[in-house]
């Protein structure tokens, strides 16, 4: 009787240990299998309606470039990007000793040629061909001599030749001076002859937006069309601004099978070069701050809901769960709609459920999947 009891206890202990070990080993797998997988999307500003939407970059329409005439050694850059300059302001200083050396070398070459020409002229039977050749060389050296100081002042300064704003300092051509605040000359760098050193725009520059679209969507835009240029997409909290641009250029890139468009922006007060903007056709004029796919909406007795995904401290550790939030649907099209929520939809949540592998209810624990961004 005693032994039978002991055997039974031993069996129960073994079963208990096996259950615990198996559960531990497979718990994560089982948990992943059982929880509904939900695709989570973020609330984004966007347009509602028919039309096309793409991403573009803002550029200055006309820029004035100041080139490096010779292979200069730039010692100091006196301006910064976005700094306003006036005509005659010093932009940079080059190594004047190097310029002087170049001038002297040229002077020496000119003097040598001059002597050679003089001695040829004094000869009883001057070689006319040689004389002509030397005269040509002399003229060339004279031109070279004049070119050495072109674009520079006497002390080796590069001056601005217009009023405006510095929009680019060509860091490749001025070596270490990517942004010119250095004035100690410690980072002298060589510029390459013929390359632009500075780009200046007028005080009220005109801006253009450039964007590309695939050849199948290219029909959405034609030269002369007005398009909407919207900023503020990248940052949820930034204010959404929309301006109009007129399509001015349309070129086909055969290599990529896409069209490159350029449009002149009418009101550029809030834009600057390299801003990323959303370009859309005028049909989708109205833009909204909270746009979601219609698949996010759940209808219950005529009331619309969305499920937002949050994290909470459960009895046994942190868990992700869904919370049902009532929303009011504003504008909508076939795919998307804009929503207004009774509570704040952007604070403390991971996003909104756009798709669930199993039916979900309020407060259900879920396994969120973030398709395009990590948490």
């Amino acid at each position: 009787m005693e032994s039978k009891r002991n055997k039974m206890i031993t069996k129960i202990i073994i079963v208990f240990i096996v259950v615990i070990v198996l559960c531990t080993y497979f718990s994560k797998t089982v948990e992943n299998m059982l929880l509904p997988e939900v695709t989570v999307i973020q609330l984004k500003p966007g347009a509602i309606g028919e039309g096309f939407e793409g991403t573009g970059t803002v550029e200055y329409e006309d820029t004035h470039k100041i080139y490096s005439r010779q292979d200069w050694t730039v010692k100091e850059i006196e301006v910064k990007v976005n700094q306003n300059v006036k005509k005659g302001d010093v932009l940079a200083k080059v190594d004047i000793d190097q310029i002087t050396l170049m001038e002297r070398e040229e002077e020496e070459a000119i003097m040598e040629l001059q002597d050679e020409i003089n001695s040829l002229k004094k000869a009883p039977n001057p070689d006319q061909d040689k004389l002509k050749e030397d005269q040509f060389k002399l003229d060339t050296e004279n031109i070279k001599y004049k070119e050495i100081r072109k674009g520079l002042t006497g002390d080796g300064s590069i001056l601005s030749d217009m009023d405006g704003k510095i929009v680019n300092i060509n860091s490749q051509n001025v070596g270490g001076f990517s942004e010119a605040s250095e004035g100690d000359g410690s980072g002298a760098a060589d510029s390459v002859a013929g390359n632009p050193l500075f780009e200046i725009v007028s005080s009220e520059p005109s801006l253009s937006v450039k964007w590309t679209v695939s050849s199948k969507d290219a029909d959405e835009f034609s030269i002369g069309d007005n398009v909407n240029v919207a900023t503020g997409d990248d940052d949820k909290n930034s204010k959404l601004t929309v301006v109009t641009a007129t399509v001015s250029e349309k070129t086909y890139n055969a290599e990529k099978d896409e069209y490159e468009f350029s449009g002149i922006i009418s009101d550029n007060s809030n834009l600057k070069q390299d801003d990323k903007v959303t370009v859309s056709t005028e049909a989708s004029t109205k833009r909204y701050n909270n746009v979601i796919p219609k698949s996010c909406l759940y209808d219950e007795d005529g009331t619309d809901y969305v499920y937002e995904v949050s994290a909470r401290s459960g009895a046994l550790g942190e868990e992700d769960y869904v919370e049902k939030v009532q929303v009011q649907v504003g504008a909508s099209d076939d795919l998307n709609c804009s929503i207004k929520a009774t509570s704040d939809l952007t604070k403390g949540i991971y996003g909104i459920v756009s798709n669930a592998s199993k039916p979900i209810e309020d407060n259900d624990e879920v396994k969120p999947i973030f398709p395009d961004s990590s948490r």
Partner: protein
Amino acid sequence: MKEKNKIVSVLEYTVLIIFAFGALFPVIYMVSNSFMGEEEVNAALQNFKFHIIPDCFTMIQYYTILIRKPDFLLRFWNSVILTVPIVIGQIGTSIFGAYAFAKIEFKFKQQIFFMFILLMIMPYQVTLVPIYIIMKKINLVGSYASVILPGIFSTFGVFLMTQFLKSIPDEQCEAAKVDGASHIQILFKIIMPQCRGAVVSLAILSFVDNWNMIEQPLILLGNEKQPLSTFLSQINNNELGMAFACGVMFMMPSIFVFLNGEKQLLQGIQHLDMK
């Protein structure tokens, strides 16, 4: 006279049954509630009802803690990692200590043994601060070793084994000595085979004690390494059904250990009593 005895007997049994029920009620309540759904448990509590028999028998709480919440299992293994080395270590140190006190004559033996008993009757919290300081000095705070190392050296274990070893006749050890046996040989070949019961009872008592420990892990371990004993208190009021299931799972190992060595434990306690 016979009738009077019968009445006394009935009264005795009634009192005993009431006490037994009082002792067992929390366990019965916990086990029965662990087989109820969360809503049923909460409804009963809100209405101040002692609800013993489930309206709807369910294993959902066990399913949740064993399948859907890996955290419970991690805490369970934390408890195992802490308890098993302590039990094994405690048996080792207690046997050696007890042999010294019971079978070897040395100076100040009685005084040192008295200090052991003094330490044994002191609450654990008294030694907790020095232990924390020592562990911090040797950079062990936050590791399992900070709980395991102090746990191995138990005064109660030494006391229990000493009492048991005293019951083994000294003549056996003397005879072994005459035959040329060393202390180690005497311990392992003469003493150990006779004190299996005491070792098992020490193992059971030590296991239960350390399985239920609260203060040491709370002070010496980080959140990730907390055992089940501290984890149960973290379950909030809204998930009491789960707390009941966790409680049942938590007491299972102690019950198994007890049932497996019940006989030896009783023998060990009897020995202690005898002395």
